[in-house]
């Protein structure tokens, strides 16, 4: 078995080996040379035969051994086996040698291939490198391409022959380009020369202008002197050119609404009303400064707002209030220029109106002042009449001037925490609606604001008339009040026919009242806070009649209302007794009779006189008891009445008939 294994191992080896040939003629035995002559296939067959013989011999040996044969035969066979072994060994060697040879040949070939491969790589690399270089060269942009050159046709036309060299350049692009560059250089040099020359000329001209300017400004003082000298001449001829020019000059800096107002008021004054005059007052320089940078100031505001907000978060509470106050002040800023309109009346009193423009709120406000020719005697109750705060209240119905008429201002106020504009009105002036209209400002509900000339013109006449009427009514009232306070009812001669000759009841007191005291007396609806309230006391004997009077600011367009209460043998009032109510009606309702001659400024005093007459009638017709015990009457009947009672409510006759002089019922 062991032998079989050895043989099989040899077989494997032999299969894979090539055998080296034997060597050349020299005594050296070179098996390798022998190898080249032998055929591997033959060797393989030989090996197979040898193996088969060996196997056969082994089998025979074994047979012999088992059958107990002689050792000579066995030894023969052993010798034959050994020979076969030697053959096998040779074959093995040959196989090894063939293998080695093969390997060497392969190795050599491989080496050759490697060398070539390396060369190939080198060449490829060089190729790539060269290609890169080429592309770089191709991409190269020379600066000369950035220079704008004139087109070729122009070039050939304009350039002189030495530069253009057409015989060369027409064929050769390179030369053409060079030539064009040369031409470009030439041209540029020439133009640079021209530029320098022009600069020099400009300098010279500039100097000349400066000189002339200086000359002109030196003339200015001379002109001023001439103007000054001409002033007396202007006055003499009453053509105040300079004044008007100055005003026009300043007027250029007025904000648009004030400008509209100025133009319209001046026009109205010239055309219809010689007693109206308009002036501009205020700081012109500040106005100029404002008009110079209107956009800047707006941007500044928004920027500073943003900055302030950032700073606010870092600072503590106390300074926030101060900043808010500053913001408020900035929002309520007035334009530095203002208009002053003076309305002169026949009696010498003047109504001064000062108009201001609030820039950020875009509204106009007005402040008033009254100056009179004579010093007004101090009537205590008349304190409110000419008060500049309330003088122009309700010039048009329900125009109180306490809130801003511009709806957009509401949002602005919210930003700076102003709740009511009324707090600032005494400082800044009243923003009446008629003032806005005179300045051509119209605020529609959707916020569109335009400065409209036509609006101002259409309102000017009516407003001026109302203003004048208001002043005169107030002045008349002032005079009447000082008389009333002395218990004299001033009745003019034109109104004497309204009253009987003898009036016994007399006014004993005339004082002012406050709104709170009045509210219980008359139902609301006819009375509001802006009205003026007074108390009149009329007395006769033991009877006292208290009359609470409410005077609407629009007197005499609106009638004063009287509310009566009588203190005589108990207390009765117009609320409880029909006759007192009839007296109230007699005084409150009949405007046409009581207003007297135009403009109706006697209304209040006539009403008070009529009240006295009615009290006379009331007291004289009041019978104390029914027939039977009748004591002496306190008030003997003096007034002539046809009947003392009439109708279901037994009213007294309060209507006076002129000239017959008797009293009847309405």
């Amino acid at each position, binding site marked *: 078995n062991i032998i079989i294994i050895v043989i099989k191992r040899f077989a494997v080896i032999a299969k894979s080996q090539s055998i080296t040939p034997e060597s050349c003629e020299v005594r050296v035995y070179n098996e390798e040379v022998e190898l080249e002559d032998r055929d591997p296939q033959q060797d393989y067959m030989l090996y197979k035969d040898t193996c088969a013989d060996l196997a056969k011999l082994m089998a025979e040996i074994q047979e012999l051994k088992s059958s107990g044969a002689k050792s000579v035969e066995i030894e023969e066979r052993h010798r034959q086996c050994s020979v076969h072994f030697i053959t096998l060994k040779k074959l093995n060697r040959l196989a090894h040698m063939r293998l080695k040879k093969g390997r060497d040949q392969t190795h050599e070939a491989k080496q050759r291939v490697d060398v070539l491969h390396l060369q190939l790589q080198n060449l490829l690399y060089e190729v790539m490198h060269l290609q890169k270089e080429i592309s770089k060269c191709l991409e190269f942009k020379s600066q000369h391409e950035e220079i704008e050159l004139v087109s070729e046709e122009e070039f050939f036309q304009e350039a002189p022959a030495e530069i253009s060299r057409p015989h060369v350049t027409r064929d050769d692009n390179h030369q053409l380009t060079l030539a064009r560059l040369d031409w470009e250089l030439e041209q540029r040099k020439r133009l640079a020369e021209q530029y320098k020359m022009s600069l020099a000329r400009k300098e010279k001209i500039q100097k000349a202008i400066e000189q002339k300017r200086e000359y002109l400004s030196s003339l200015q003082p001379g002109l001023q002197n001439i103007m000054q000298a001409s002033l007396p001449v202007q006055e003499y001829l009453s053509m105040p050119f300079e004044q008007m020019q100055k005003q026009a000059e300043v007027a250029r800096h007025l904000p648009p609404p004030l400008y509209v107002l100025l133009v319209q008021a001046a026009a109205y004054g010239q055309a219809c009303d010689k007693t109206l005059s308009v002036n501009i007052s205020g700081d012109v320089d500040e106005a100029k400064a404002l008009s110079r940078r209107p956009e800047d100031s707006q941007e500044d505001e928004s920027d500073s707002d943003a900055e302030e907000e950032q700073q606010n978060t870092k600072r503590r509470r106390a300074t926030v209030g101060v900043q808010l106050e500053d913001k408020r002040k900035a929002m309520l800023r007035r334009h530095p220029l203002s208009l002053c309109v003076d309305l002169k009346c026949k009696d010498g009193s003047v109504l001064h109106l000062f108009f201001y423009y609030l820039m950020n709120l875009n509204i106009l406000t007005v402040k008033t002042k009254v100056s009179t020719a004579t010093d007004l005697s101090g009537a205590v109750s008349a304190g409110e009449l000419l008060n500049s705060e309330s003088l122009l209240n309700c010039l048009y119905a329900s125009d109180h001037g306490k809130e801003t008429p511009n709806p957009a201002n509401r949002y602005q106020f919210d930003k700076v925490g102003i709740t009511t504009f009324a707090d600032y009105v005494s400082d800044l002036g009243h923003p009446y609606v008629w003032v806005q209209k005179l300045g051509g400002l119209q605020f529609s509900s959707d916020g569109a604001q335009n400065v409209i000339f036509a609006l101002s013109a259409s309102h000017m006449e009516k407003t001026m008339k109302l203003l004048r009427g208001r002043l005169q009514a107030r002045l008349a009232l002032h005079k009447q009040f000082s008389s009333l306070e002395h218990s004299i009812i001033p009745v003019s001669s034109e109104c004497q026919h309204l009253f009987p000759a003898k009036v016994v009841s007399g006014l004993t007191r005339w004082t002012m009242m406050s709104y709170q005291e009045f509210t219980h007396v008359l139902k609301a609806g*006819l009375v509001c806070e802006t009205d003026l309230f007074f108390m009149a006391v009329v007395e006769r004997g033991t009877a006292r009649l208290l009359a609470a009077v409410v005077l609407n600011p629009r007197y005499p367009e609106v*009638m004063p209302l009287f509310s009566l209460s009588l203190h005589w043998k108990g207390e009765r009032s117009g609320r409880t007794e029909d006759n007192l109510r009839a007296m109230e009606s007699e005084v409150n309702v009949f405007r046409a009779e009581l207003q007297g001659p135009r403009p109706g400024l006697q209304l209040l005093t006539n009403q008070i006189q009529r009240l006295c007459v009615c009290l006379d009638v009331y007291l004289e017709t009041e019978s104390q008891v*029914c027939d*039977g015990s009748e004591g002496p009457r306190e008030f003997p009947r003096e007034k002539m009445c046809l009947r003392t009672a009439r109708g*279901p409510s037994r009213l007294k006759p309060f209507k006076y008939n002129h000239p017959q002089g008797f009293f*009847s019922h309405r």
Partner: protein
Amino acid sequence: MGPVELLHMSVFSQSFSPCGRFLAAGNNYGEIAVFSLSAALSPDASEASQKPILNFTAHDGPVFSLLSTDTHLLSAGNGEISAWSWAELIKKSTKAAWTRKPSYETSLEIPEINAMIINPKDNSLIVGGGDNNIHIMDMETGIFKSVLKGHTDYIHCLCFKEREEEILSGGEDGAVRIWDARTNRPVHCIEVFKYEECARPQFGKWISCLATDSDWMLCGGGPSLSLWHLRSMSPTSVFPLPGCQREAVFYQDLIMSVGEGPHVSHCLHGGTVKAQIPCTPSSLNTLALNLKNSEHRVMTVGGSSHQIDVFTNFSYRAFSLSF
């Protein structure tokens, strides 16, 4: 009519239309306003339905008396009586059917007419007013057929007793006179102020309201409101109401009266004041009950205000109509 005029308006007279759906009211400016009760009482009534459907100036002076016949509204102004067809008024036409004047003796001042009543027996109109006399006019012919003289001062109120055909009149002179309508002769004269239980000398003696119900008579004014039994000619109960009463009516078993003071007084025959219902005007001149129409059974009162209070339940004011 401005707010001041409205403030000084007084309503003096009222009358319901024959169908009971409209109310006419007269004021001191001589205007008559017609209100639609059905509109004002309907569930979807608004502020506009409390305004008159028609308002016009009927007379120069105040309209102290209004009276409705079956077809016409009679109104009394300064010494004249006008008739308006209800059908025309509802259609908003303000043309008077006729205007007649009783003949007056005085010429200086035209006397007012304070009260008008109808005598259904002979279809005549009885008016009394400022000239101290009662005039009787025949409705068909329009002729003033008789004058009843007797009062010494102007006549406030008139009343008619159907069964006996008697006219009762109360006047400023404090007397209640009873006249026979057939013969036009005075029958009785009661001077109420002479009776101690009724008299109120601090006020005066005039009689401004009269009402009768079979044998009973209500009268009041300067003297207290009192209930009289006519057969015995004596006061049975005196009502302790503070002001002077201007109109009183019998209604079922109650007596309702209005006058000075902003309330309607409900009284019982025994002499107790059951309730005083507050109203808008500070004193009242007229009270009217709409008994012709069961749907619109309301009581309306008017006085020294431009508003007329409407009571659907007689115990409280429901809403007000306004001129």
